[in-house]
């Protein structure tokens, strides 16, 4: 084919270059929110960032490593738990937040050696059992008040405004760092391995992809991320009631966000978190009906729009805002359309 010479493989398109640039500018702008905008807005955005982290982490596990975990609340709770214990030992509370998250996330390393040998539903429920075990162990610890829990009183060293600002910046920082880590990971060789694993694990293994290692990296990252989210949630709500941190409803939220946004896309979880945040704001007070709606929506997305909102956009228009994949340049427009519409001539 004489077209071959003109074809090249690249990562960036004009759109993705522009949007990445905009995203960076946005992050810089967001840093000024605590000083520029109201306390209420600051609080709400902090919550949004935590949702983004949770959505991105669950999506990384399920969408990129093919591991649907119904037990990430284990890390969410452990992150908060570790933070409280560290603060109780006298560690500076904001350092405790990060350290606690890292320690809790580190638990993912030994955990991965067992859990990653499981597949599908076994892994999903296995993680749920692990979460229950973590919960069961934590409530045995009297120093965090058992079932009744306790509070992160060490935060009281700081006045309310400072707390708000620090929480905000920590949340923003954590979200950015985790997203950047994910971005780098997905663009790296590991990222390509993960896509291969997701598509066909055996075929990937047969060409030398180290399946367990690839999944392991994502599993640990997701553990650290969810633990960080738990620590941050503790910072914003101050109280630690184990039952609400280790509850499976956190998985429900994560599933909803990941599905609504688009499983396996980079932009999807962000969209999903925003959608979830808006729904929370609007209906969070409607009691359980809102959970019913969330569950029904998750079912609906799973069956009718499995690629999620962003996935549908990406599929339709072939655009990516952040360049995690590869693109062929130099082919005519028909060749870059969605797979279902064309077929490759040998």
């Amino acid at each position: 084919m004489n077209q071959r010479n003109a074809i090249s493989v690249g990562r960036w398109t004009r759109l993705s270059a522009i949007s990445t640039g905009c995203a960076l500018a946005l992050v810089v702008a967001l840093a000024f929110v605590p000083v520029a905008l109201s306390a209420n807005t600051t609080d709400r955005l902090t919550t949004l960032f935590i949702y983004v982290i949770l959505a991105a982490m669950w999506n990384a596990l399920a969408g990129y490593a093919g591991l649907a975990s119904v037990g990430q609340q284990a890390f969410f709770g452990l992150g908060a738990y570790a933070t409280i214990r560290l603060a109780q030992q006298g560690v500076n509370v904001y350092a405790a937040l990060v350290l606690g998250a890292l320690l809790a996330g580190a638990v993912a390393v030994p955990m991965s050696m067992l859990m990653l040998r499981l597949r599908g539903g076994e892994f999903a429920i296995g993680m749920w059992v692990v979460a229950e075990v973590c919960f069961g162990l934590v409530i045995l610890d009297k120093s965090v008040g058992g079932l009744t829990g306790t509070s992160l009183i060490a935060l009281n060293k700081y006045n309310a405004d400072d707390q708000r600002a620090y929480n905000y910046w920590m949340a923003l920082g954590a979200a950015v760092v985790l997203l950047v880590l994910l971005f780098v990971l997905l663009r790296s060789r590991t990222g390509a391995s993960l896509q291969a694993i997701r598509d066909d694990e055996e075929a990937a293994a047969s060409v030398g992809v180290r399946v367990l290692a690839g999944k392991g990296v994502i599993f640990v990252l997701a553990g650290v991320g969810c633990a960080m989210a738990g620590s941050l949630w503790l910072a914003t709500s101050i109280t630690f009631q184990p039952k609400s941190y280790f509850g499976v409803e956190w998985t429900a939220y994560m599933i909803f966000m990941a599905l609504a946004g688009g499983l396996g896309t980079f932009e999807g979880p962000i969209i999903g978190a925003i959608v979830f945040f808006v729904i929370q704001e609007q209906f969070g007070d409607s009691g359980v009906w809102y959970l019913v709606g969330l569950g029904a929506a998750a079912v609906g997305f799973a069956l009718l729009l499995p690629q999620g909102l962003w996935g549908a956009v990406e599929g339709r228009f072939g655009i990516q805002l952040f360049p995690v994949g590869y693109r062929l340049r130099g082919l005519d427009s028909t060749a870059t359309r969605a797979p279902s519409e064309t077929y490759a001539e040998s």
Partner: protein
Amino acid sequence: MTLLAVEGLDARHGYLRAVRDITLDVSEGETLAIVGANGAGKTTLLRAIAGAHKPSAGRISFDGAEITTVSPHRRVKLGIALVPEGRRLFTGMTVEENLLVARRRGRPGPWNVESVLEVFPLLAPRRKARAANLSGGEQQATAIGRALMTNPRLLLLDEASLGLAPAVVDGVYRSLRTLIEGGATIVLVEQDLTRALSVATRVVCLLEGQIVVDGPAKEMTRERIVEAYFGLRRTRGQEGAPA
């Protein structure tokens, strides 16, 4: 009379067009042999006829009625039975159970466990053996017997000789001849040209998803088929065009 009519059939595996615009008829009582290299589209074609593979274009009619969207188990009721490539027996079940599963929704007719065991006497002592413990020949016999239990009007055989010792294949083809003499309509996919020509009344050769040769077996020479099989007659620039 025409039992099976395939018109303009297209079948894909993801991007790949395995079957391209195939049109062919099978008359009642005919024995059609489909030959071609690996990947030529033979199995896909058979599976599409049996309903296990959804075509992306074209029509399939059986006994005058269109069946393109009919599900596989309903096609069995209509009288189409496929002996899949690789036998695909239910390994957890015995020979007898394998046969009985097919009988459940089968059509009325002469085939039942006893008559199948008559045609395949090698199975009689293995009746209660688990399918996983059978030899290759026994497995093939069971697979064919299982298809027969549905009392089909059209029997599709995909690579019945694959992986079997020649002596065993002899046995399989002996049973096939019995069926043919009984008036069965058979479409068989076969890699072994000699075997195929020995039972077929008509031969079709597929190359890259298209029919390149279609004619009575009597008029076929090995040379003609071999040419078509390997696409030797095609000229450059005519990639994909029939010979």
